[in-house]
């Protein structure tokens, strides 16, 4: 009987104490700064610059340091990368890359292509805002014009490849392509696109 009474009143004191404690905890969180980062328009700097250093965003290729080894193409598990090489017609000793396409709409950002690259030509940037007016613009053609192919880069021993700053080439490319309208599904002569 005495124990039952103690248990009964124990429940009451437990409830009062835990309520008190719980209310102090929630109030203390109300007075702290929320964790939320207010993307996109209330940031001190660009979101891409605030991401962790190993963030895997859109792929970028610096053709100036690409050796044309095709290791990335072989590494890609879903065949997103397409590379074609040829001989330079004017200089038979020099081989050139005539096509280097990455379909970012299919890319799964696994990072397997980055690892075998001998010069760091292909790398993940911190860019992630890949909304384009046309999905075709997500196929990044790093050799823009097959008539002006990129020559193979020969690494110099004991010297790092002079790669362009990460993200610079990509941002320039995206600024050019992101507003290109998709072809009309009705074909030419259909309603005018704005």
């Amino acid at each position, binding site marked *: 009987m005495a124990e039952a009474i103690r248990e009964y009143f124990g429940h009451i004191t437990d409830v009062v104490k835990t309520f008190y*404690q719980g*209310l*102090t905890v*929630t109030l*203390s*969180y*109300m007075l*702290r*700064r929320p964790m939320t980062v*207010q993307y996109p328009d209330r940031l001190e700097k660009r979101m891409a610059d605030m991401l962790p250093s190993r963030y895997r965003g859109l792929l970028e290729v610096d053709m100036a340091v690409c050796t044309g080894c095709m290791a990335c193409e072989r590494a890609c598990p879903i065949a997103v990368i397409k590379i074609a090489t040829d001989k330079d017609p004017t200089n038979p000793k020099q081989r050139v890359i005539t096509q280097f396409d990455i379909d970012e709409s299919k890319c799964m950002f696994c990072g397997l292509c980055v690892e075998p690259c001998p010069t760091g030509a292909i790398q993940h940037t911190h860019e992630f805002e890949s909304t384009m007016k046309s999905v075709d613009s997500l196929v990044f053609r790093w050799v823009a014009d097959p008539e002006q192919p990129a020559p193979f880069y020969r690494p110099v021993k004991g010297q790092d490849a002079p790669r362009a700053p990460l993200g610079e080439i990509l941002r320039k490319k995206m600024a050019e392509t992101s507003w290109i309208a998709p072809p009309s599904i009705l074909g030419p002569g259909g309603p005018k696109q704005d």
Partner: protein
Amino acid sequence: MKITLGLDSTSLTRRYPRLAILVTLFMAFGVPLSLYVAALAIFPLNTPERLNAMAQQWLGFNLAGSPYRYLVYTGFLLLVAFIAVNYTAVFGGVSTWVERRVAGRMQSRIGPNRTGAAGFLAWVADAVKMVLKEDTIPASADGLLFRGAPYFSMVGLLLPFVVLPFGESTVVTDMNVGVFYVTAVTAFVVVGILVSGWASNSKWALFGGIRGAAQVLSYEIPAGIALMVPVLMAGTLSMQGIVRAQGGYPWDWFVFQNPAAFVAFFIAVTSSLAEGNRTPFDLPEAESELVAGYHAEYSGFRLAIFLMVEWANMWIMGGLAVTLFLGGWQVPGITDEMYKAALGTGLVPSPTWFVFQALSMLVFAVKTWALVFTFIWLRWTLPRVRVDQMMSLCWKYLVPGAFLCFIVTLLWQLLVPPVGVKITGIVFTVFALVLLVKFLIDTRRNIDKVKGDRVDLSNW
């Protein structure tokens, strides 16, 4: 200038920040304030004698002898009802915004902050969205009851406003059975819940409805008994009479005047939380168990009514507790005689009277909002209780506790002289203040426990 009036309110808010702030200020202060002013202007007039006298003096029209006098009286009643209903809706909307922002910060996030300044217009956007949605009635539902259920809930929400005071004279009517009336009409809400649960012809809705019925019927008992404590202390059932029996200073409030009333206050608040289906007692709608409970099948405007009832009920719960236990609209330092003197005998009271009225309304609103904030705060602190816990809390703890408070209050009224009541009031006020300070210190300590955390109210 090209203005794209899309449905993207965000862009408008950001494009015209000044306009957004103006609209927000208007909705946040202008609308409630104009309702308060209208209430202050019209509620005290709302007696046949006053209307007759005014018609006689200003229009030279003998209203008392006119055959159309009841039309005029009814018109005024409708005006009063219009103000009260609008106040309910605005409060319901604003409290959803407050709840979401408070909940957000308590969970280290921000909450709605895009529509209007500080996201205040989110509730207007929500309401517009709700009204625009399709109003569906399930094929196998009982159409008449399904359509009728929101009305019961709505009526249960609006009827208490007849006696719930806003201020010294701003009350629709001062019934001599006020407390009894409130406990009776708030039960209408559960009729709505039960009917909607049944009429939806869905098992989750039915579970919700049955749970709601069991819960509200159980908690009527401790609530009713606990509400009797201030009635015993004041010796009247009239809401205004109970407020007049208290005073402006905390030690004159009923909650601090005897230990039993202190306990009864918590019992009454807990029971009213359960009756209003607020977490931790939101079993009828338990979204993780019953989808949305009794309103799972509702959409559009009918759902909006259910949600509005749920949130606006907080004003009733808070207002009732403030009226009965926390001194109601009593302003410190202003006595009944001063109100009477300021009123005078003329048709239009003196400006002092209006100032006093405004002060009393402000005091009542501030106290009620403080309680509403506590309800919100409790919701984001406690998890939902189980059905058996809910039942055992009611029958094993609150009902005996309420009866004990009732008996102790009876004895207290008989045995303790007025000096003793005064001393108890001061002791309990000091105790409450000490508890508050300790509470804030403990809160501060919780923040300091985490390295690098500090009191920071930025990031809105």
